[in-house]
């Protein structure tokens, strides 16, 4: 998909001013955070499982080449095919070649962020294929010709009124006087409309949450059942997966599955966790006749062995964005590419370049909630800092930022001067702000005061207060 990550600031400004979006975004906070906390509290081993999950992935990444070879051997042995795709173009070509060879017309799809990453829908449509997204959220945004705004809830930026309008606009064969204002009616209508498409599809494309080297299995985790209909009814099942999805055994996958749904939606387990191995067997009565796995690299092999390797542990649960104050404020589209929120701020510059996506690692308050909730214990703030450093080293940051940092560094290297200047500053600001307790305009701080007031300091700096407190404590202990 075409990135607008370079325009993050404009995107964010527009998002903040968009009242409908702001209304929809309240669902992120109210929907996900409490449910995850409840699920975590219910499983005493949750944090230990996070450690185990991290260790499994670290071991796998350290031997990724071997595990991928073993995985391929098992896929082949069970009658499937692995297509190694170094780039997005290779992956798209592999899918199109299969569709062409089997003379496909209709292609159904389960939700796959990899397919967004490689812009698969666009390529298939250009090749004359009828492409149907079947996850409800993905179906809605396909009708709207929008990218997803969340990796597990692609239409979380929309209100039910918007969905109703879209359905009325597109489902013209249905009676216009039908009731459609409630989510239950919208879900029923989508079910009815998509049922026919499932049955007429020639090829079904899904992503994969995991690939299992022990058995050559791909795993999808869904709640709607659309992924299962997508991969069971057509003649051909194609899995598009990035290469870091592999884990050694079913037991290893199980351990990570125990933290996945709980972190994502707060469910104990998602409704459907499906393990697919090869095509239908000779004696089977249903299932696809062909099973293909497109194994995508697209820049990930470069992350291995770098300071961004830990990011390859990500299992795309979405917990980091669900808990991110920046995501809550601007939503997913502002990030401008497939992966929003903290995980996107780390991953996107890796995949499309820091020149294009340099704003994203800066769009963080470093509050640390993303790392605190990450089931795979990925140090997201640390890696965002790596990007900021790189951006600075490569002179990609604007002159005002560089000047400000240089000025700050000048004082920071001279602690006495620093304390004198900041102490004076705090006293002055405290004096002038004593009436209102805040400033609505300040020289050199317009970027801040344009959107919110600057609180007036109480008059003394933290360092001064700390020193006083230490003195008082000493005096008290002497008494």
């Amino acid at each position, binding site marked *: 998909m075409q990135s607008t990550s370079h325009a993050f600031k404009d995107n964010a400004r527009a998002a903040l001013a968009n009242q409908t979006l702001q209304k929809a975004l309240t669902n992120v906070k109210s929907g996900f955070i409490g449910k995850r906390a409840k699920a975590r509290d219910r499983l005493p081993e949750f944090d*230990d499982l996070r450690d185990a999950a991290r260790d499994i992935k670290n071991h796998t990444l350290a031997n990724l080449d071997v595990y991928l070879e073993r995985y391929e051997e098992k896929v082949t042995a069970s009658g499937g095919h692995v297509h190694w795709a170094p780039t997005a173009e290779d992956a798209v070509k592999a899918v199109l070649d299969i569709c062409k060879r089997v003379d496909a017309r209709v292609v159904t799809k389960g939700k796959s962020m990899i397919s967004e990453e490689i812009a698969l829908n666009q390529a298939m449509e250009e090749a004359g294929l009828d492409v149907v997204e079947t996850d409800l*959220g993905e179906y809605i945004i396909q009708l709207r010709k929008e990218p997803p705004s969340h990796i597990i809830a692609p239409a979380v930026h929309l209100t039910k009124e918007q969905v109703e309008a879209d359905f009325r606009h597109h489902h013209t064969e249905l009676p216009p006087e039908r009731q459609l204002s409630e*989510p239950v009616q919208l879900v029923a209508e989508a079910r009815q409309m998509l049922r026919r498409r499932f049955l007429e599809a020639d090829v079904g494309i899904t992503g994969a949450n995991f690939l299992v080297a022990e058995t050559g299995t791909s795993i999808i985790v869904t709640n*709607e059942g659309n992924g299962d209909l997508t991969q069971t009814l057509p003649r051909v099942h194609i899995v598009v997966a990035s290469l870091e999805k592999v884990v050694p055994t079913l*037991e290893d996958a199980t351990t990570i599955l125990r933290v996945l749904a709980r972190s994502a939606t707060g469910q104990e387990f998602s*409704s459907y*966790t499906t393990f697919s191995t090869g095509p239908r067997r000779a004696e089977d009565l249903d299932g696809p006749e062909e099973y293909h796995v497109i194994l995508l690299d697209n820049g990930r092999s470069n992350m291995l062995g770098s300071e961004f390797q830990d990011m390859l542990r990500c299992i795309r649960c979405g917990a980091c964005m669900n808990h991110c104050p920046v995501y809550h404020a601007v939503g997913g589209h502002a990030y401008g590419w497939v992966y929003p929120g903290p995980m996107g701020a780390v991953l996107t510059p890796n995949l499309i370049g820091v020149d294009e996506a340099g704003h994203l690692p800066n769009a963080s308050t470093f509050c640390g909630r993303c790392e605190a909730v990450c089931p795979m214990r990925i140090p997201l703030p640390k890696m965002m800092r790596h990007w900021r450093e790189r951006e600075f080293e490569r002179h990609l940051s604007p002159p005002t930022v560089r000047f400000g940092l240089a000025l700050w560094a000048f004082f920071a290297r001279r602690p006495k001067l620093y304390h004198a200047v900041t102490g004076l500053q705090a006293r002055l600001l405290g004096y002038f702000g004593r009436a209102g307790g805040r400033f609505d305009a300040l020289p050199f701080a317009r970027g801040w005061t344009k959107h919110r007031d600057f609180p007036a300091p109480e008059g003394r700096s933290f360092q001064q207060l700390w020193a006083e407190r230490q003195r008082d404590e000493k005096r008290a202990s002497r008494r």
Partner: protein
Amino acid sequence: MSTAKANTGKRQILSALRRSLRRDQPDEAERAAIDRRLRTPQANLIPARGQIPHAEQLDLMVTMLKELSATVVRLGSEADVPAAVADYLKGENLPPKLRLAPRDDLRTLPWDGQPLLEVEEGIAEADDATSVTGAFAAIAETGTVMMASGPEAPITLNFLPENHIVVLRASQVVGTYEEAWQRLRAVTGPGEMPRAVNMITGPSRTGDIEQTILLGAHGPRRLHVLLVDDGPVHDGPVGENKNG
């Protein structure tokens, strides 16, 4: 994709990975350790929740199913299944018609005792309202029903009809996923899997519209489990294969 081209992609990716790992091939000892890990899979940390006596696992299974908005009825014997199916359909106001998984143990149940019930075998058709299938196992830890595909267990029966009725024997209920995998390996052989293993945890649901959770998105709106008591089960230590 031609084989030559395919091999190029593979070579390219593997050599990129090895460059990043700063080594060529892993040494023999590492490779052997990996093969051992794959040949004899070991359990990681297993939550205590499911590691309880079998009778309690059955209770846990029932509790979890109800929490998931599934329904469950405990039956004293397999022979009670047809009547329980008929009752359920009547109670839910559903047509007395079902698609039965083509397996001997279900086929031979006393369906003739329910003359109003129309029973057909095979894969799911588009307009089938209700399917009746047999579970491979069930995992009490999360209230999950495990289906293993095969000629007696078509996959479409699990997803296409709006109502899915699963016949589950008490002896098929295990506490943890790790036990379920051992039972599967005992049937399929180590490292082997059927086309599909479906772990089903409650009915189909979606939260895609304003995070409102609704049932019956694309898969079954109703999941009904008939838990059949099939005699005493002896408790073994977790991880022991009770089927083998």
